[in-house]
């Protein structure tokens, strides 16, 4: 999320600044099968129920995805709106 905001990626709103409190940094992870992501916490799971557009199996909140070298090649799609 921070990387997206700092690089001015349109479509990541992140109103709460990365606090897992607003569900406006929703992304769809494209190739999640090949890349191991941190597991979804209870808090994130709850917030994912509250995204502006429909939650899919590949939904994550990008504030909870800290980028590591292992994620090289990760593709995420941004939903059409966040609120």
């Amino acid at each position, binding site marked *: 999320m921070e990387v997206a905001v*700092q690089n001015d990626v349109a479509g990541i709103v992140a109103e*709460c*600044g990365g606090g897992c409190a607003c*569900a406006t940094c929703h992304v769809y992870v494209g190739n999640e099968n090949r890349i191991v992501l941190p597991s979804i916490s209870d808090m994130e799971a709850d917030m994912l129920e509250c995204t502006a557009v429909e939650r899919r199996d590949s939904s994550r909140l990008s504030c909870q995805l800290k980028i590591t070298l292992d994620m090289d090649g990760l593709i995420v799609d941004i939903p059409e709106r966040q609120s």
Partner: protein
Amino acid sequence: MQKNPLVVVGAGQAGLQVCDSVRKGGYDGHLVLIGEESSLPYQRPPLSKKYLTGTVDEQRLTFRPVSFYEKNQIELRLNERIEALDCIKHNVIFAGGKTLNYEKLVLTTGSRVRPLRCDGADLPGVFYIRTLTDARALCQRLAKVDRVAVIGGGFIGLEAAAMARELQKTVVLFETTEHLMGRAVSAFLSDFYAELHREHGVELHLGCSVNRIRRQKNELVLETETGTEHRADILVVGIGVIPNVELAENAELECRDGILVDEYGRTSDPDIFSAGDCTMHYNGFLGREVRLESVQNAVDQAKIVAGNLFQKGASYTAVPWFWSDQYDAKLQIAGLGMSHDEFVVRGEVKEEGFSLFYFRKGILLGADSINRPADHMACRKILENRIDIRPSEAGDLNFDLRKRSKIAG
């Protein structure tokens, strides 16, 4: 002919949002954002939270990189103070006397800390948390001391107390009223938080004012009204904010504990708008005037202003929401529940998570959720769409709130 610029005074959350939203809305004229501080516009909420641990890189607080301002042709003028407005000539007047002509002006001047007024309030070792400069100074000092005193049991004081405890400091906190966060949450929740802070080792003094501070060798001595003395290495003061209305007031714009704006963000001058902490504004959801100090209000009101500067746009009807992190308790507040005549508890009252739903005459006013983000989000939707919900339903864990929040209002 090139028109005069849209000028935004105040480069905080609201000011930046106005600029971002007018550009997204298609405004392609000259746009100037003026800020007093030297850093790129940044997020304030972390300053009383994680930032105090000293592990947060300051760069992570900035909203947008320099390239954002370049790409969006926002002329960012930092370190510049506006001294006065000339509404007749459509000028803002800088410290030093230079002027800038505007077509439309937006005041997003925010608020400043309410200063402590007692003997010794200006001694070295007394800190506030408002700007990055404030927080940086506190953070550096905090790392080197053991005993922290806090005056003020509002969000800022409590978040600072919680962070100081996480850093293993001894913490004593004084609150003049009997209730923590008394302006924002119910006595029930306030009591829960008092217990939470005590469990985490904070020495709480409720209903207790500090009358005098003096410096003795390397420590601060706080004298309370009852004559007791408390020693600490530093003092953090969080006793609220004062809206920055002076520019508006001196220009004879209508003010009433804030710059008065209507539901479109218009001040009493047709070419001057205002948004954020500094406004006393009409909110259509609440059906009354209110002044709110929150990120939500800054962002949502700024969007309304952006939509109404050059044409008639939407009016302000956003449901207020707010959050605060203290220890492992994430508090999320939806709506304004303070005028309730009834409330119900959803879940078991413990740090792991519960919500309080507030009603007046059977109508939902809002909810405070601790570690129950789904309750919070559902409550916001229910309020937004004015969906009926009974207290007995809200208080029943088996009742599906999310499903109710998704029906048409």
